């Protein structure tokens, strides 16, 4: 190969990359909190609620699970302002888009874990004469939430990675700043490799942690 690598050029851009990374982290954390809360409510409503509400929420979930996140972002960035007649900042648009996406996948996680709580537990509640509210709050929910934890964590790591898509709609996250530096310096190999490395250094330990939590919970449930 007829090229020499020079990673030292990146030293000039550490501040810019740090600002981009901070935006990525802020956006990811905010959307994890908002999206998980949304997903929890939707998961509960889809497991009980009336048929109309269930149908409507089902449609929402399938729309966001069945289409590319990229087109969801484009839709929220370019169509939502036209429909509502209001302009949003990039950060607000990205937050809406990623929260709706996270809400959809997380609601499925909660729904699956609600269903995984055994039928005999409900029977036991009835036999003990527990009121409906206590059945849900004290028996079903704590178990369901605990079972959902590993998948919720891995959803959160996924969101961290998906957040890089906001660069495609012009938001100055880590990926966007990385691409700018790469174009301005004409050093894509060094710059993009370092950007990938930064994502990796954060996502890899988190992925490992998810596996550890999962194994711990599995042991707990099998005991």
């Amino acid at each position, binding site marked *: *190969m*007829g*090229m020499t690598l020079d990673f030292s050029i990146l030293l000039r851009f550490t501040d810019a990359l740090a600002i981009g990374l901070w935006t990525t982290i802020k956006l990811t954390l905010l959307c994890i909190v908002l999206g998980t809360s949304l997903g929890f409510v939707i998961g509960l409503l889809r497991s009980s609620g009336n048929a109309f509400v269930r149908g409507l929420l089902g449609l929402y979930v*399938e*729309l966001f*699970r*069945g*289409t*590319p*996140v*990229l*087109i*969801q972002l*484009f*839709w929220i960035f*370019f*169509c939502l302002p*036209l*429909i*509502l*007649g209001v302009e949003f900042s990039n950060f607000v648009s990205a937050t809406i888009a990623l929260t709706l996406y996270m809400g959809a996948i997380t609601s499925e996680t909660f729904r699956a874990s609600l269903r995984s709580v055994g039928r005999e537990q409900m029977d036991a509640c009835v036999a003990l004469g527990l009121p409906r509210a206590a059945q849900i709050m004290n028996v079903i929910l704590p178990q369901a939430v605990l079972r959902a934890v590993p998948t919720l964590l891995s959803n959160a790591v996924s969101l961290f*990675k*998906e*957040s*890089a*898509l906001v*660069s*495609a709609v012009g938001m100055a996250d880590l*990926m966007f700043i990385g*691409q700018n530096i*790469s174009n301005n310096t004409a050093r*894509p*190999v060094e710059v*993009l*490799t370092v*950007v*990938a490395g930064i*994502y*990796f250094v954060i*996502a*890899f330990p988190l*992925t490992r942690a998810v596996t550890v939590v999962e194994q711990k919970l599995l042991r707990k449930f099998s005991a």
Partner: protein
Amino acid sequence: MDYTLDLGAVTRNMGPLMDGLWVTLQLTLAANVIGVIAGFALALLTTSKLALLRWPSMLFVEFFRCTPAIVQIVWFFYCVPMIFNVFWGPVFMGIVALGLNLTAFNAEAYRASIQAVPREHLDAGIALGLSPTQRILNIVLPQALRNSVPVLLTNGIGIFQQSALVAIVGVADLMYQGKTLATATYRPIETFTVVALIYLAISYPVGQFVNWLERRQSHS
């Protein structure tokens, strides 16, 4: 809203959208062929007893699992031609980039089902005097393949959705044609909605099929 919907802008331009869809389907199918085959080979490597085979293959898997797909695609399109001095067509580049990503995810799916093959089956294979190759091909492969089908399909449809990322590096797929059309006609709502529905119309049935398959497998 001061925006009147006009689906005509989209219906008059279905030609380019269908061309884009065709590219998207080609990307998806070819990446899946790579992912299903190379994924199994990679899974065998990650479960190998030899550290020299195991470590590089695990690094490969973790790299693809722990970085954003968009970073992988952009890296691939910019850096591979520079590093290896090769110039492939954009669709072929897209196929290889998506195929490598899918290979890593499928390897994880296969690895889980390879490890789920009961130890006794391999012992039985040894007792019957089967060679290691025979044990892999006749005992491990059929079971691992059958058990991983739902995850392979889920990953496959995942790559169908991820394939939209190649629009960012200029491959004329469905997403790219949609973007171009939305800009040219000033009709983002109609265009992006129709494009999203086309993606949904393909991934939804496959998702339902996977659900059905999973239910059937958990019953048997």
